[in-house]
């Protein structure tokens, strides 16, 4: 099955709301990467692996800090592929890479698509690549059947929403609010209306992310989207050396 179809299928067939945790690769230590991945894969429906970047301008302090630490630890896209190809266990759920454009650009788009395919990566999310500029990357990923997951935001007008939803593969990433990741503000009041609109326009699953950190939020979103993405809140659990599985299960426990 093509990688993007597997991703879409996994989200469609998940029991209740699909849970997509985000971790920054190699944070807090290089050794923690595969260990965390294995642990999270027991409970998640898909995992988003963050490629660190020096200028993560869509991210709040938590992801920034993790990104800078991972860079200090020597993490790169090549290192991530290397770790994935040498791991001694199998991951059955789909994997995604979240990366700003420049590390992908430096790696080469065609090469990226091949490496992604060989390492069971199903999709790629690029926060600084709006759909107007996505063609060159999308062309390369399409060749290998890798999803380029498009993002939409509450600022996106409806006609534009429709175009983007049609263009997305795997799922549509619905950013819950304006701003950066991990801000501890409450989710916007009109969130459910917005998610309903995206759901209505999207032929593929819709997953919501940015600022999701509590069970009540997941519960609310679950009625209006197919999945949630949890990043900064999970990084804080990892940073505090707390139980990852316990935290993630608690989010779905309603």
């Amino acid at each position, binding site marked *: 099955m093509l990688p993007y179809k597997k991703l879409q299928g996994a989200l469609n067939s998940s029991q209740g709301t699909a849970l997509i945790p985000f971790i920054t690769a190699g944070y807090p230590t290089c050794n923690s990467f595969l260990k965390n991945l294995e642990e999270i894969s027991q409970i998640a429906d898909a995992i988003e692996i963050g490629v660190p*970047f*020096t*200028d*993560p*301008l*869509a991210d*709040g*302090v938590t992801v*920034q800090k993790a990104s*800078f630490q991972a*860079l200090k630890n020597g993490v*790169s*896209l*090549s290192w991530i592929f290397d770790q994935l190809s040498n791991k001694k266990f199998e991951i059955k759920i789909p994997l995604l890479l979240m990366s700003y*454009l*420049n*590390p*992908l*650009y*430096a*790696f080469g788009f065609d090469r990226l698509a091949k490496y992604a395919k060989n390492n069971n990566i199903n999709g790629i999310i690029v*926060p*600084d*690549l*709006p*759909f*107007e*500029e996505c063609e060159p990357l999308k062309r390369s990923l399409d060749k290998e059947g890798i999803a380029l997951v*498009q*993002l*939409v*935001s*509450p*600022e*996106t*007008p409806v006609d*534009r929403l429709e175009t*983007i939803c049609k263009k997305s593969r795997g799922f549509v990433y619905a*950013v819950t609010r*304006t*701003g*950066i990741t991990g*801000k501890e503000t409450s989710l916007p009041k009109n969130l459910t209306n917005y998610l309903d609109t995206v759901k209505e326009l999207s032929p593929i699953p819709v997953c919501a992310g940015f600022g999701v950190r509590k069970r009540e939020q997941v519960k609310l979103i679950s009625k209006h989207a197919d999945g949630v993405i949890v990043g900064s809140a999970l990084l804080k659990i990892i940073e505090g050396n707390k139980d990852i599985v316990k935290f993630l299960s608690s989010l779905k426990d309603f």
Partner: protein
Amino acid sequence: MKTTNDQKELLDRLLRGDLPDKEGRFGPFGGRYVPETLMPAINKLTDGVLRLLPSENFKKRLNYELKSWVGRPTAMTNAKALSELWGSEVWLKREDLAHTGAHKINNAIGQAILAQELGATRIVAETGAGQHGVASAAACARLGLPCTVYMGQIDIERQAPNVERMYRLGAKVVPVTSGDSTLRAAIDEAMRDWVSDPVNTHYIIGSAVGAHPYPYLVRELQSIIGKEAKSQLEEIAGLPDAIFACVGGGSNAIGLFHPFLGDKNIKLIGIEAGGKGKKLGDNAATLSSGNKTGVLHGAQSILLYDENGQIQETHSVSAGLDYPGVGPEHSFLKYVGRVEYKNATDSEALDALKECCSLEGILPALETAHALAGAKKWSSQNKGSRILIGMSGRGDKDMPILRKYIGIDKDDKPNATV
């Protein structure tokens, strides 16, 4: 550099005014690489720029401020002592005499008016050397708009006088401690602010960088430097053989060069920060040392980055040039072979600054001193030429750095007995 037909055709398109194109591209450079949350704001701004910039009402409002508040036109000075020493005819376009002390005010007041016309109720800006921060703070005070300026912690320390000026002018200054704590991190942080409130906030970017329409908008607002210089020199002395400007992000250079791009017998030379030397990380010589295209801060351009795509830290004695990228139009102008990019080291810039102070009675900014250093070097190989140098700003802000790098020599002591 040899140019192909393709490159010639691209330059001709630029000269006809066809670039940037609708997608915000200058050939292979430019574009709009921003989070989706900002795209509606970017599209609205693009429409606003294309509609307002040519409108009589906007031009009238801007020209009034430029004349009565900024103090334009700025002077054209014949640098007699430098001319004699260098064996050339040296002319200085005096942006250091513009209100708040640098060319930055041309862009800041223009964008502030534009933002107000488009209904923005709040302004954010980033600053490296502090000149753009001061200019934005002043423009916002003038128009009654609240202003927040992001500035790297390292720059706050090395450009302290400007931080106090921003406070006095009513701006909120937010120190940035993430990333490299200089200009690049300040742009990251200003963009994070903008993405949080894209509807009411306008981001006044300080250089000819960023997503479309910014490189175009900044170039249009700064082109007044080159337009004035051209008519002034035509009247007093005749057109120059070569023009020099310092290049960080490249706003004063694009403003000075742009009106001369069609005069193909005039050499245009941008001078970047050569820093401590040629090693990656020791300079900010993006175009004069590098050739790798990448994406940073919303645009595709030539950048300094490593094999993993990580943006490089840079070094320059001048905070305003300490940036690992450059505006996309400069990458384009290098690509088509119309502008040549060279660099001057920290010590060459400091020497040029001292020379300009003692011979011409003008204290240039450290950024500007790079242009002087580059012009001097070129002049030594091209004696008898007429050259124009963009004096992008004044050096009052640099006193803490000058104290650190030059110190106060015995000869310099103000009270030394004669």
